[in-house]
């Protein structure tokens, strides 16, 4: 594919509010995980973003107010992203800037609160519950478009934990088809009772901090976060600065099981090879693989098999979920921004919280940071339903 350029980016997660805090956490190997104290759940750890409760929304319909949109707003207002979008909007026109975002649960926490306050006689949720602007999946792109004053086409992609990675692919289709000139791509997912209790019901929550790729890994820590990039054609806007290039992608399904990855990793291998083909790169051109690396036994074993099949043991790879927890549909965009930071600052983040790497793994798993200037990074995201997305980014 012809590369597209990322001209601005922003990220908020338990690892930091904005790029500057985030890069410090990554370099100093400081996890953002804390003991779970959310929605009545006290088991396990979570990657909670401080300050959401105090963050108010301005300049939009008040009905949009919910945890997920607040989190999105915190990211929109960080890292000069709002101003960057305003410049693109002024150059291209509001109707030529699209919004393509991923989320798995949008503002479901608002629906949980509404169910707790249902009128027992009438069966009605309270009047304050604005379903369309909070719980509905489309609430996220509608909020972001409203906040940024954008009038281009909107899309919400909800492919479970691959949502915001897959959003890049769908954004490219609209750009290449000429329906827009720039796209705000990204996503947000926020803590809620449904995912905390749901993953617990599947026995997938680690009692201690998640430790992807460890021999004794025992599950995920759930996190929350949001991130956005501005994606454009290279050279289309003279004033734009290039943060990084998006070089390739591969998308596939497992066709295997709703919540267990295919142990043969057929779909994951296909996605990674397709991403390399789209980018016209060889496996040896990739300097680092940012693993999906959730910390479950099955995911990490499957991913090791897939990475080894594609790269052998020659390419360093690691998961950054020890910093953020698994931010579900937002993990793809968050780790995209982590990749941008590694290429800008010259380091590779190794897995956090690992005592002994799984001895059965054959790929080159990093458990400490490496000082190295990567030129190309692959970022993986896999999700329930058997959905896979691999993205390749290149340095500016």
């Amino acid at each position, binding site marked *: 594919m012809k590369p597209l350029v990322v001209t601005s980016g922003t990220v908020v997660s338990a690892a930091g509010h904005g790029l500057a805090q985030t890069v410090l956490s990554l370099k100093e190997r400081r996890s953002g995980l804390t003991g779970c104290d959310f929605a009545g759940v006290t088991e396990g750890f979570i990657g909670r973003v401080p300050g959401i409760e105090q963050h108010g929304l301005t300049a939009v319909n008040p009905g949009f107010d919910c945890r997920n949109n607040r989190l999105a707003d915190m990211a929109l207002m960080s890292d000069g992203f709002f101003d960057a979008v305003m410049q693109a909007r002024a150059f291209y026109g509001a109707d030529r800037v699209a919004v393509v975002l991923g989320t798995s649960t949008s503002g479901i926490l608002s629906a949980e609160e509404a*169910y707790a306050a249902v009128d027992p006689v009438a069966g009605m949720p309270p009047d304050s519950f604005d379903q369309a602007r909070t719980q509905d999946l489309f609430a996220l792109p509608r909020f972001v478009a409203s906040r940024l004053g954008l009038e281009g*086409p909107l*899309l919400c992609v909800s492919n479970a934990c691959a949502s915001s990675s897959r959003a890049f692919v769908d954004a490219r289709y609209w750009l290449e088809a000429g329906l827009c000139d720039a796209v705000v791509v990204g996503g947000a997912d926020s803590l809620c009772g*449904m995912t905390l209790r749901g993953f617990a*019901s599947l026995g997938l929550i680690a009692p201690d901090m998640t430790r992807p790729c460890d021999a004794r890994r025992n599950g995920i820590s759930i996190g929350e976060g949001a991130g956005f990039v501005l994606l454009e054609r290279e050279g289309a806007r003279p004033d734009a600065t290039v943060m990084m290039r998006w070089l390739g992608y591969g998308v596939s399904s497992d066709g295997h099981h*709703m919540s267990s990855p295919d142990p043969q990793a057929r779909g994951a291998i296909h996605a990674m090879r397709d991403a390399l083909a789209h980018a016209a790169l060889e496996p040896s051109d990739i300097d680092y693989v940012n693993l999906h690396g959730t910390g479950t036994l099955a995911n990490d074993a499957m991913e090791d098999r897939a990475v080894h099949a594609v790269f052998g043991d020659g390419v360093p790879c690691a998961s950054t979920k020890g910093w953020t927890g698994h931010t579900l549909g937002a993990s793809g965009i968050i780790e995209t921004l982590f990749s941008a930071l590694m290429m800008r600052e010259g380091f590779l983040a190794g897995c956090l919280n690992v005592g002994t790497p799984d001895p059965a793994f054959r790929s080159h798993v990093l458990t400490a940071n490496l000082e190295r200037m990567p030129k190309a990074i692959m970022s993986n995201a896999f999700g329930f*339903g058997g959905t896979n997305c691999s993205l390749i980014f290149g340095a500016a």
Partner: protein
Amino acid sequence: MRIGVRGVTVRGPGLSGWAQALRVLRGEEDWVPGPVHLPPPDCLPPNERRRSGAVTRLALLLADEACAQAGLAVSDVRGVFASSNGDGAGMDDILASLSVPDGEVSPTRFHNSVHNAAAGYWTIGHGAITPVVALGCFDWSFGHGLLKAAAECLVERKPVVLVAYDAPIPGPIGRVRVTKDIFGCALVLDAEDAASGLAVLDMSCGVGPGEPEAERQGVYGLIDGNPAAKALPLLAALARGQNRRVALDGASGHLSIEVRPC
């Protein structure tokens, strides 16, 4: 954007597959609304087949019917599944469980709660690794889904099946997010040799509301009761085999479609 339509189907009250819907939409047969019969999907293993809910059954039936009509195997088609509510019954069940202290969430309900569950079951049922994407665009899922599916088809130069489907939500959410009927449709789009299919669509985006506004008589009364039923004017144009322009309103602006039969 110019794109060909190679397969089409629809399921909803009084609409039971393309062969029958064709006659209704041409005015050759009266529209008689009634319960929507959704057989368990043949492609799923027995356990999943038995457990499958109405929304999954609807989506899989539509995807399989449209691909069969187009003469395409699942492995040759990329999937775009557009649904505003997803599995509303499952969501209501989970939310009800969460509203009681220490409420247990069913693990099966939870993994089926992902918006791409129906799309996932479709690939699982057929053992296919073809990519599928699940979209949720509130009242505009059909129009935004069509714009997305057409662009994917043009850029990837591969056939794409767009499946748009929604169902009423029970419980408190259903009181504020009202979906009256179960309804869905599917289109197989193909950019290659567009003129060899059923029709060619020329699509463009415009500002403000589109024209002509859809009528609401008879079967078209379904339009206001389900986001996927906004496809009805396009389906009618395909059924009638006449040159016709239809408009689909979006979240902002509209999609204008010139339908030319092949």
